[in-house]
């Protein structure tokens, strides 16, 4: 019996030893959870935020800079406050907020730092800096926020904000962390990857009380932060600010392009706001104010607002008819007010006069020739063939398609297709008489101001354009994205532009665009008075100048301001004068535009 017991005792000892070795094998060899937990224990990741890239205007003027701000961090375990009231007074929070924030931080982690108060300004920091020593457990961590020294260009620049959940989920590169800042709209969003730079990470070892114990593995895993790339914008700040001044108090858009490059000289969305409102501590308050404004200042009108092109579209119709060979520019066409409402008097018009007087009935006939070319005896089928051809042309003008501009969410406008009318009327159940309002840029057509500026640019270039863009150089490259170096031809021979441009010149010299006349510089343009079923008509105008060596192409829409000849033409003309001559001599026109009483 004793022998059996001896064996039992020995077995028990060996068994315990075996259990230990196996359990240790599981903990030490099989599982790497403990290794990770150990690193989690001692490693503190300190993020070094890179400087976000700066943005300059075309002449080197700074549009966006970084401003240092400070976050107040808390390590709940270390907190020893002698005087909570003093603390609350200094940081301008009440006791309830303090307790609430403290609990939040505690719930997150007792030993890890978390943000207690966000974005303390430079001035506030100076005030509290010396007192920080009394607040054990609180630390200051420096970061930077965007500042817009000129307060211009709000919608195009966009803003930077804390990353949200859905953006985090979309981030497949795993670059962002909760609480990171990301470009949300405008250039800040489209050039986010260039601007953001690369975060640096420093690994610090800490002991159980969170006291730093030096760098981890001599810093071999640490990375330095790499500042974001600086951007040079195509914007001319002078022109931008002047244009904003003119559009102040109005609702509308202005886009000015350099035809020879597609560079955006100025892009205004009115009403606008101070971009500094959406930077720093007051972000959420201001965002609430801006997004509840009924005039939607956050809506980037030049690329997102869609209007019918109106009479400006007659230039496109002319060019298509000429290219199709269905129109002789010198041919006199009798146009009376029988077919469509018109302000132009009855009579014989050639193309130049048709444009000059903006004769609706002339263009009704021109468009009918484009649509009904007699390709099929059946007018229903003939219209289909005609409209298909027409649509191919307008698409090449960048109409009905989203432009390649480097700003987020540009709208495509709308150019109806055969499929569209089939859907509305049924297949082969529509013909020219159903779609004639397209001839004068009304009906189903929709364009954005940017597309009209690009149209002016196409006409200025006599048949091609560079995709409009707002950044001309990313970092040290000195050049924009390659898609902006491609010349896009619209499929109209340059010879056909001559009569159209002559007609548009007459608009300025002796037509509806006389307000845009400049004594020494030949200006070429076209007004639009866009029918608006909801109220006063929208005022539209596009132009370029000088006629033979175009430096600027421009389009302006001013909502509910009546005739294109008034609001839009005045503003566009003043901006062109400022850009081409560096000065505005026509003070009377400036006063007129600033006063903003266009309906009388």
């Amino acid at each position, binding site marked *: 019996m*004793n022998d059996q*017991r*001896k064996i039992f*005792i*020995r077995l028990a*000892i*060996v068994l*315990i*030893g075996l*259990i*230990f*070795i196996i*359990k*240790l*094998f599981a*903990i*030490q*060899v099989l*599982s*790497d*959870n*403990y*290794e990770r*937990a*150990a*690193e989690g*224990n*001692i490693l503190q990741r300190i993020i070094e935020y890179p400087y976000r890239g700066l943005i300059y205007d075309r002449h080197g003027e700074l549009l966006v800079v970084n401003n240092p701000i400070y976050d107040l961090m808390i390590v709940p375990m270390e907190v020893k406050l002698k005087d909570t009231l003093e603390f609350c007074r200094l940081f301008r929070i009440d006791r309830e907020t303090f307790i609430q924030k403290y609990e939040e931080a505690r719930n997150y982690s*007792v030993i890890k730092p978390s943000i207690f108060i966000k974005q303390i300004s430079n001035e506030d920091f100076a005030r509290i800096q010396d007192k920080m020593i009394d607040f054990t457990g609180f630390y200051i961590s420096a970061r930077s926020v965007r500042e817009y020294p000129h307060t211009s260009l709000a919608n195009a620049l966009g803003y930077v904000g804390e990353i949200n959940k859905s953006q985090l989920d979309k981030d497949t590169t795993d670059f962002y962390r909760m609480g990171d800042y990301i470009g949300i709209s405008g250039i800040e969003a489209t050039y986010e990857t260039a601007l953001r730079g690369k975060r640096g990470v420093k690994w610090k*070892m*800490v*002991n*159980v*009380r969170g006291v730093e*114990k*030096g760098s981890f593995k001599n810093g071999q895993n640490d990375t330095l932060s790499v500042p974001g790339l600086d951007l040079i914008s195509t914007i001319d700040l002078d022109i931008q600010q002047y244009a904003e001044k003119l559009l102040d108090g109005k609702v509308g858009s202005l886009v000015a392009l350099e035809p020879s490059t597609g560079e955006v000289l100025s892009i205004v969305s009115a009403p606008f706001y101070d971009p500094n409102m959406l930077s720093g501590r007051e972000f959420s308050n201001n965002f609430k104010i801006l997004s509840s404004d009924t005039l939607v200042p956050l809506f980037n009108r030049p690329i997102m607002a869609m209007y019918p092109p109106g009479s400006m579209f007659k230039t496109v119709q002319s060019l298509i008819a000429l290219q199709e060979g269905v129109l002789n520019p010198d041919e006199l066409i009798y146009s009376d007010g029988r077919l469509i409402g018109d302000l132009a008097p009855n009579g014989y018009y050639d193309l130049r006069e048709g444009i000059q007087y903006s004769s609706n009935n002339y263009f009704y006939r021109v468009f009918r020739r484009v649509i009904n070319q007699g390709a099929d005896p059946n007018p229903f089928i003939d219209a289909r063939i005609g409209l298909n051809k027409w649509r191919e042309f307008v698409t090449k003008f960048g109409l009905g398609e989203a432009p390649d501009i480097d700003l987020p969410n540009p709208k495509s406008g709308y150019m109806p297709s055969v499929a569209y009318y089939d859907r509305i009327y049924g297949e082969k159940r529509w013909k020219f008489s159903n779609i004639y309002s397209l001839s004068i840029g009304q009906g189903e057509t929709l364009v954005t101001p940017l597309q009209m500026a690009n149209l002016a640019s196409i006409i200025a270039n006599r048949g091609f354009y560079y995709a409009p863009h707002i950044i001309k150089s990313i970092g040290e490259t000195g050049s924009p994205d390659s898609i902006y170096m491609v010349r896009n031809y619209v499929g109209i021979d340059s010879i056909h532009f001559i009569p159209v441009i002559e007609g548009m010149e007459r608009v300025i010299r002796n037509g509806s665009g006389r307000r845009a006349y400049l004594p020494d510089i030949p200006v070429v343009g076209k007004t639009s008075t866009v029918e608006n079923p909801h109220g006063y008509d929208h005022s539209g105008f596009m132009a370029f100048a000088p006629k033979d060596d175009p430096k600027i192409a421009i389009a302006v829409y001013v909502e509910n301001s009546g005739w294109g000849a008034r609001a839009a033409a005045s503003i566009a003309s003043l901006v062109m004068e400022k850009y081409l001559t560096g000065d505005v001599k026509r003070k009377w026109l400036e006063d007129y535009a600033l006063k903003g009483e266009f309906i009388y």
Partner: protein
Amino acid sequence: MRRDASITNNLDWLTLFIYGILVITGWLNIYASVYEEGASMSIFDLSLNSGKQLIWIASSLMIFAIVMSIDFKFYESISYLIYGIVIFLLIFVLVFGTKVSGARSWFEIGSFFKVQPSEFAKFATTLAIAKFISQPSFRFNRIPDLVAVFGLMIAPMLLILLQPDPGTALIFMAFIIVFYREGLTPYVLIIGILFVLLFILTLFIDQLYILLGIGLFTAVAIGFAEKTLKRIAAILFIATITVGITLSVDYFQTNILQPHHQKRLKVLINPNSDPLGDGWNVTQSKIAIGSGRIWGKGFLEGTQTKFDFVPEQSTDFIFCTLGEEQGWAGTSFVILLFVILILRILYIAERQKSKFARVYGYGVASVLFIHFTINIGMTIGLFPVIGIPLPFLSYGGSSLWGFSILLFILLKLDAHRMQILIR
């Protein structure tokens, strides 16, 4: 001359060798757990635990010399005296002892020297029990003998419980293994295990359900068993004992066990229940050991112990430092050493001609085995956190001296085993 030769010839060098390795491993790990990077420090620095431990190691060598030079028959003859002195000290410490972390277990002599009499109670009790059992007239089935031998075991336990230091008190249960070897009915062992199981169960399940469970179990057992009166009576007897245990466990828990002990037991089952509170020690201890992987982070390269994530690193949780810096290779090596050492001691015990020496040997093995099981078990989350040292490795003069004396006396007895006449 002859006598000296017999000592060196008959000394069990293997045991001594393992002892040496364990002590040196302990010393190095104590240094590793107090080591701070950057600070210029020496393993010999007397203000550090490692320097002090070196003193304890050196003095243990002196103890070795003293133990070896005393006549081997002397230990048997003064067993009760030593036991009596220790019992006296255990009473004395309750009155004059210094309170350290809530327990009055230390004598403080000057500011440097501290003695924990409960550490010496281990070998003293082993001696007394060996002496008592080795009486020729002793029988385990004689109630007075049984009461007396359990009394020898329980007396120091109770005094240590009064300090209170339930961890150390628990250690004395080790002697049940000795009793079992020497003929105690295994029912005591079974009841002991049952007690522990029910004890843990009552922490998580309402007492009522356990009683219902026992009732059901009894009913089923009677239903299936032979329907003899004797069998049924036995089953009912066991059921009664179980119910008794359950009730007493409940009483023990609510009236004797302090809340933090209860929590420790709960944390053992689920450390995540309170990771920053009572689960902290277990969690951090496992993290430190687990992060060592196969080969460890290297001597002095441990981060968890160095940065104080593991509590009591040089004493009760010394195994963590070993696990972190030497990895699975190191922990398995030390476990293997312990298993070999304990088995060797049992082998030594069994080759004794004197019953006293044999029982003493079993006592040594059992005491070491219980420490080994509980200490390592607690660091890897298999046992509740009970503050007892890992023999030979943990920092501490009293514990190293206590274990050294415990072992050395056995070596001395063993060296003279041939001089014993069989009675």
